[in-house]
């Protein structure tokens, strides 16, 4: 008897290697004759490079080569997931703190590090754009060279794009209550525990690059483009990343290491320090001005939102982050009139990129705090005001687009019950509840090949990256269910463009839905072939799969190969290029106790509810959702990158940039799901894994407001900030004001 794998807490594929230390991350891989790379930086943000003296480094022991912009092809190859704007190494100027101006290649890590210290970079520190104000100031220097976008009317500004979304007539919408506030969301960094790491080696007449990427096929395409090679001559090997969270989604130093491998003719390895990783990726910071109109009964009459999102020096995927999140800037609500204007701004800072939630934590911080403000003013309960406005299942809350695909009120009621909404509160405590909705994957394609072996076991080939979310396990469960074999008989091969078929990427919580369907589709292909074989062999109906295989293949043996795919095509007239396949809806609720003497917030209880359609592996859903909530507590309570006047990151590294530890956990934490089998993925599933952090900040902040009476609209809610606001509200001066 085979245990049904769908809906079971099947143990993580690859789990044993992870608890024994056998799991091989990039830094654990050794190649013969491997060289070591150290990047060369200067200690400021925006600077003009006057000259680079590499002579001492070139002569140092163990050095094989020193490379600067002058040693790379001219014109300098530029790349990026959307805009090809990022040079392989800084050319003429550095545009952010930590942008590499050179790379030393040496026989040992120590030799590379020592030689990097010998390089003299004469430079002139230039005024930089380090804030939203500076990016909008016409007197500020331009971050991007205008000739990189010669046909863009905004080429002489620091605005990459200004996006407009909306419907209805905001200017004539009637409202009894209008709340008008400004919200800030800081720069935060991914802080995957595995610092980013890369290896490249010449292979035949091409190159192989090892990178812990979420996106092996985009990496392959971009490396091929930079090196001028056919895609088939670039092999990307992507061992499971040691945490990614969006930070390992798009190319950073892969083109550089590929080029160095070809130049030196040997394998090269670049291991970034955690500090260098901080300088490589971050979340897009923003300021959101939200004006929201309500009727006296709490129903929303309009939302009028104008935002500035501060990208870094290169676009990376940030414009897409901004577009996708602001497309749903009004939240999961029924809004008769909406106007959303958002600017994507360049700055002389670390290029911001995808980060779990993809802009949703930023926009929900505003729309949820606005609902609370209206609730406080009108005396309507904060849960009730949400229930009155939430789009009902089937309702097109963005006109003309994918309708609400879940019973979102059910999630809210479940969270409210679990947090004890409406029950008496102890002194000094407060509760908050908030929701968020993310537009999932729009366009995209996933392919899978499933090989059913002669003994009835199966190998699944999938281009998904298992970066901790457990895709390997869930895809095995899908294959086992479809083929009717034990999940222990299924192996999943991932992370090698030479072995697995194309997948768009591992992002947007898309893999269960897209790759899950591709795997199921491949299994259906196999089953159709088996039925055909059984009928040709004259076998009785209901004969087992293994018997069909034995009868068909005999002593010569063989296998049945199934091919599956799931595609969602590009829609040119859609603002996002395609309609969301599903929405990731999440509700968070929190009970806090605030120490008014210190401003310290104690999380007494924290609850998350994820509408996942169907939890294929409930244990994996819980660990993803609770993990996301813990990560969300980081940007809510403690995390923010601090820049100085020269654009330097002042809290670079683990000593000065704190992320949640076991000591920061809520005293109680519960994650729950809503499962109505209403998603487009296998068995009615939807994506999961980002939701838990999307509404953390507004839920906690709302609880702090109930506990203390103060409203805070800037994150993080550090003790200093909370204490200062409490003092101010009590009519006392804060420490510095």
């Amino acid at each position, binding site marked *: 008897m085979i245990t049904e794998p769908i809906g079971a*807490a099947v*143990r*993580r594929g*690859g*789990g*044993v*290697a*992870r*608890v*024994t*230390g*056998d*799991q*091989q*991350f990039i*830094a*654990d891989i*050794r190649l013969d004759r491997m060289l070591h790379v150290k990047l060369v930086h200067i200690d400021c943000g925006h600077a003009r490079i006057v000259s680079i003296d590499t002579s001492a480094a070139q002569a140092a022991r163990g050095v094989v080569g020193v490379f600067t912009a002058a040693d790379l092809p001219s014109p300098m190859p530029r790349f990026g997931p959307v805009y090809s704007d990022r040079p392989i190494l800084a050319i003429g100027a550095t545009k952010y703190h930590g942008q590499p101006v050179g790379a030393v290649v040496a026989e040992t890590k120590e030799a590379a590090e020592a030689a990097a210290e010998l390089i003299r970079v004469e430079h002139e520190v230039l005024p930089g754009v380090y804030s939203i104000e500076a990016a909008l100031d016409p007197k500020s220097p331009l971050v991007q060279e205008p000739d990189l976008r010669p046909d863009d009317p905004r080429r002489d500004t620091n605005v990459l794009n200004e996006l407009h979304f909306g419907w209805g007539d905001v200017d004539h919408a009637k409202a009894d209550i209008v709340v008008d506030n400004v919200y800030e969301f800081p720069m935060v960094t*991914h*802080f*995957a*525990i*595995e*610092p980013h790491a890369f290896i490249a080696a010449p292979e035949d007449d091409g190159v192989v690059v090892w990178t812990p990427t979420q996106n092996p096929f985009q990496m392959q395409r971009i490396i091929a483009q930079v090196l001028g090679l056919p895609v088939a001559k670039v092999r990307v090997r992507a061992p*499971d*990343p*040691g*945490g*990614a*969270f969006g930070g390992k989604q798009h190319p950073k130093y892969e083109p550089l290491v590929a080029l160095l491998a070809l130049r030196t003719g040997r394998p090269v390895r670049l291991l970034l*320090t*955690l500090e260098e990783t901080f300088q490589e990726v971050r979340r897009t910071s923003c300021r959101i001005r939200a004006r929201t109109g309500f009727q006296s009964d709490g129903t929303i009459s309009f939302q009028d939102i104008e935002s500035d999102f501060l990208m870094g020096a290169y676009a990376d995927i940030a414009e897409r982050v901004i577009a996708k999140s602001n497309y749903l800037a009004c939240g999961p609500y029924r809004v008769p009139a909406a106007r959303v204007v958002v600017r994507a701004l360049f700055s002389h800072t670390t290029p911001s990129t995808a980060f779990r939630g993809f802009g949703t934590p930023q926009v929900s911080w505003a729309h949820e705090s606005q609902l609370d403000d209206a609730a406080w003013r009108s005396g309507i309960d904060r849960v009730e005001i949400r229930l009155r406005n939430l789009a009902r299942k089937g309702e097109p809350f963005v006109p003309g687009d994918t309708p609400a695909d879940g019973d979102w009120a059910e999630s809210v009621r479940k969270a409210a019950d679990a947090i004890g909404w409406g029950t008496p509160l102890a002194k000094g405590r407060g509760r908050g509840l908030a929701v968020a909705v993310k537009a999932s994957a729009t366009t995209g394609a996933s392919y899978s090949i499933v090989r059913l072996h002669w003994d009835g076991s199966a190998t699944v080939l999938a281009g998904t990256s298992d*970066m*901790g*979310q*457990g895709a390997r396990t869930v895809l095995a469960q899908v294959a086992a269910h479809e083929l009717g074999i034990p999940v222990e008989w299924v192996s999943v091969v991932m992370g090698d463009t030479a072995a697995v078929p194309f997948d768009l990427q591992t992002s947007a919580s898309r893999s269960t839905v897209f790759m899950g369907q591709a795997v199921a589709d491949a299994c259906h292909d196999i089953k159709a072939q088996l039925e055909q074989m059984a009928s040709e062999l004259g076998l009785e109906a209901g004969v087992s799969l293994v018997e069909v295989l034995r009868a068909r293949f005999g002593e010569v043996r063989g296998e049945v190969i199934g091919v599956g795919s799931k595609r969602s095509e590009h829609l040119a007239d859609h603002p996002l290029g395609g309609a969301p396949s599903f929405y990731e809806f999440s509700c968070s609720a929190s009970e806090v106790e605030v120490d008014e003497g210190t401003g310290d917030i104690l999380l007494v209880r924290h609850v998350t509810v994820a509408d996942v359609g169907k939890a294929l592996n409930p*244990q*994996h859903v*819980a*660990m*993803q959702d*609770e*993990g*996301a*909530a*813990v*990560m969300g507590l980081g940007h809510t309570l403690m995390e923010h990158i601090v820049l100085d006047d020269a654009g330097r990151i002042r809290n670079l*590294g*683990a*000593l000065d940039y704190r*992320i*949640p*530890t*076991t*000591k920061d*956990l809520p005293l109680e*934490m519960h994650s729950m799901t809503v499962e109505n089998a209403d998603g487009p993925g296998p068995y009615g599933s939807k994506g999961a894994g980002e939701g838990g952090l999307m509404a953390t900040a507004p839920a906690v902040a709302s609880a702090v407001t109930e506990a203390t009476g103060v409203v805070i609209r800037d994150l993080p809610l550090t003790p200093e900030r909370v204490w200062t606001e409490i003092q101010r509200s009590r009519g006392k001066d804060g420490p510095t004001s």
Partner: protein
Amino acid sequence: MRIHVTVNGSEHDVETEANMTLLDFLRDGLRLTGTKECCAVGECGACTVLVDGRAVNSCLMLTAESDGGEVTTIEGLAAGGKLSVLQDAFLASGAVQCGFCIPGQVVAAHHLLARNPHPTLDEVKEGLSGNLCRCGGYMQICAAVVAAGRANR
């Protein structure tokens, strides 16, 4: 300088640079790559190993300081290729996500259980507070350690 150190029961008589960290010695010298490097400043716990029964951040310890000592790494915990009760509890509880911090967590938890065989949840939170997990799997990690403690009764 020449040192003598026992690692996971194997004795090593080796020449080491005076400034080589124990982490680099384990990873580069002995190719025991289960011990991970993240912050390199003693904050994240990914490089936790046991030296003479004490849990240490191997990035902050010089190899020379382990002279004459006994080092246990993650590779030394699964005796005879069989998972320990603790390792199995990590898998059963769903404590393992990306896995990069897990060797450090398991070694730190092993050390905690050696001192306090049946810890409470609060004691586990205190004992593992030096081990960062960005996947945020702390609830499951702590539950695994508590469960392993119960199973040891």
